[in-house]
């Protein structure tokens, strides 16, 4: 079984991103990382390979040539080869465009299982996996906290509001990883050295016959308004009074 897994380059989630004066992100001093949710996906793919259920793990990333580093990270964790769909830095990418580009790779590689992070921690769109499902026509199991592969099916334990739900999806299938799926390993130092020798192909949107024409564009950023300090109410009566007359949430 061939597994395709995504690896998006995102701003380190531990960094507090600042805005410059004109409503753009100030990315001059930030570090980048492999999207943590994609990391769960990579770990799961490598585990499937170690368990003998997958023969090959292919990592795909859509981004500038800098994204090669995130692909190398996944290769160092144990993936076999990488594909970068390279786009220009100033190119607008919306989730649908990214889904189309990944679909282009899916058509080339014909994997049986596609693992994605449920979302990327930068834009938090949570759309690419589902859109890829529509584009490919494959079944999908989103927000996976558990994944088993049996007899041509993926059994996906999903985290849903108020509990969990298991779905059984025929392969080829799309699975998006949630944070309880596994505990990603460190890329070992020899793994990093070996990753350098693993193949990494660079493709352009043209190679995949995909036109990059984003329908959603970011027009600006602003910080959420600062929260005013709270008040401590003396008793329930005062609380009710405030809810009724100040907040006007009860009649």
């Amino acid at each position, binding site marked *: 079984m061939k597994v395709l897994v995504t690896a998006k380059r995102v701003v380190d989630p531990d960094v507090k991103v600042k805005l410059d004066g004109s409503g753009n992100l100030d990315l001059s001093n930030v570090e980048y*990382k492999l999207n943590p949710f994609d990391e769960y996906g990579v770990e799961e793919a490598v585990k499937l390979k170690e368990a003998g259920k997958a023969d090959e793990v292919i990592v795909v990333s859509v981004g500038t040539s800098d994204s*090669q*580093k995130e692909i*190398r*990270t996944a290769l*160092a964790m144990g993936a076999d080869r990488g594909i970068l769909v390279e786009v220009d830095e100033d190119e607008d990418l919306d989730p649908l465009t990214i889904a189309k580009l990944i679909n282009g790779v899916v058509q080339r590689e014909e994997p049986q299982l596609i693992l994605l992070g449920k979302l990327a921690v930068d834009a938090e769109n949570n759309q690419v996996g589902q859109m890829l499902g529509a584009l490919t026509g494959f079944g999908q199991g989103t927000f996976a906290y558990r994944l088993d592969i049996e007899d041509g099916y993926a059994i996906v334990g999903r985290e849903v509001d108020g509990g969990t739900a298991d779905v059984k999806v025929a392969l080829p299938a799309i699975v998006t990883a949630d944070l309880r799926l596994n505990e990603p390993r*460190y*890329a*070992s*130092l*020899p*793994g*990093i*050295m*070996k*990753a*350098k020798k693993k193949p990494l192909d660079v493709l352009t949107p043209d190679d995949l016959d995909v036109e990059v024409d984003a329908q959603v564009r970011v027009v600006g950023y602003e910080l959420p308004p600062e929260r005013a300090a709270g008040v401590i109410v003396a008793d329930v009566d005062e609380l009710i009074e405030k809810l009724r007359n100040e907040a006007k949430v009860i009649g």
Partner: protein
Amino acid sequence: MPPDPMALGLNVLSRVAASPTAERFGLREPIENVVHGGTRIGFAAIQRAARSFKPLRKLTSPERSEPRAGAPLFDLTPDDEQELFRETVRRFAADRLTPNARAADDAAACPDQVRAGFEELGLALAVLPEALGGACEQRSAVTGTLILEELGRGDVGMAVTLAGSMSVAQLIVDCGTAEQQARYAAPFAEEDAPRAAIAVNEGRMLFDPFVLKTRARPKPDGFVLYGEKSLVAAGADCDFYVVAAELLGVGPSLFIVESGTEGVEVMPQPAIGLRAAQTAAVRFDGVQLPSEALLGGEIGAVDYADFVARMRIANAALATGCALAVVEYVVDYCNERYAFGEPISHRQAVAFLAADMAIESEGLQLVNWRAASRADAGRSFDKQAWMAATLAAEKGMYVGTSGVQLLGGHGFVKEHPVELWYRNLRALGAAPAGLYV
């Protein structure tokens, strides 16, 4: 009593100055000149300002000079592999070293689960070439420096224990004969890897690694080793040592000494810092060594000055990591700690000291990177390594003690890590750990 000549002279001078003679000799003239000249220059300036400017060329857009093309003089960007190494080791240090640092210092030992975690990281395999069971194709002092910085950021004591054996492996890969590599370096790639330490320090004032009292006397079938090594980091529990000794008639040389050899005595020597590394004194009392014990096999095969410089870089890298940890901690603390109704970082005495600590730490880092990158480029680097060692000793201690100072009473108690960092930085400055890049 004859008149005092000095008093007489002074008397004459003051009379001249007070008399109208000064005027008569024209001494006042230059003063008037200055005044007059000054006025003229003033008028000229006003005239110049009145000049009007017209465009001399037609430009449709502003013209700027291009930045100079080609390789920059200064590029400190780690390559992807180095960046990944650094990220991985940073994560290991944050997950395993930082949370265990206090316990390891109290127990004066590196916990077994930390050792196990470090083995999973596979640093040994990253040091050894494939023929010795590893994965290394190219060695790099810069990469080694980046790794040691991150380990030092986590905890210096455990970092020395963990990286000490790797340093020995690296040294044998660099300098050992095929036989020495197969015997002493290859086991690092196997389960139950050996523990080893580099022993250079000797217990006396202003110790210089080029002037050794530990001596090796040649004999027909080998050497006899006499002397005592002090504050050998990770030295209390070792399978073998690499010992620096004066080979009589030759100069400083390195010897591989198995700890079970007769005449080798080890005594724990707990010190102010590096407690988790179990510093020890090691005595050699007429230890009989075979001729194969000489690292490199032949007299002069090892460049001892190169070895010392690489040790200095390694030690400075640990100090850098620890100093950066202090700065990070202190900045957070001073921004969160309120006194007089505002964060203490609003006080200049606090903010300026924190800024100086950051300057010194990053300055040390840059000098050390330069040394390491010159080593990788095959250029001379002993001067830069020495400068890094000096900065590590002086500024490391400055950063450590300033960290304690900025935390006030909290700097003294073990609730916060700064006193531990201070002790470790102090120890690194006084007696360099036997690490090697």
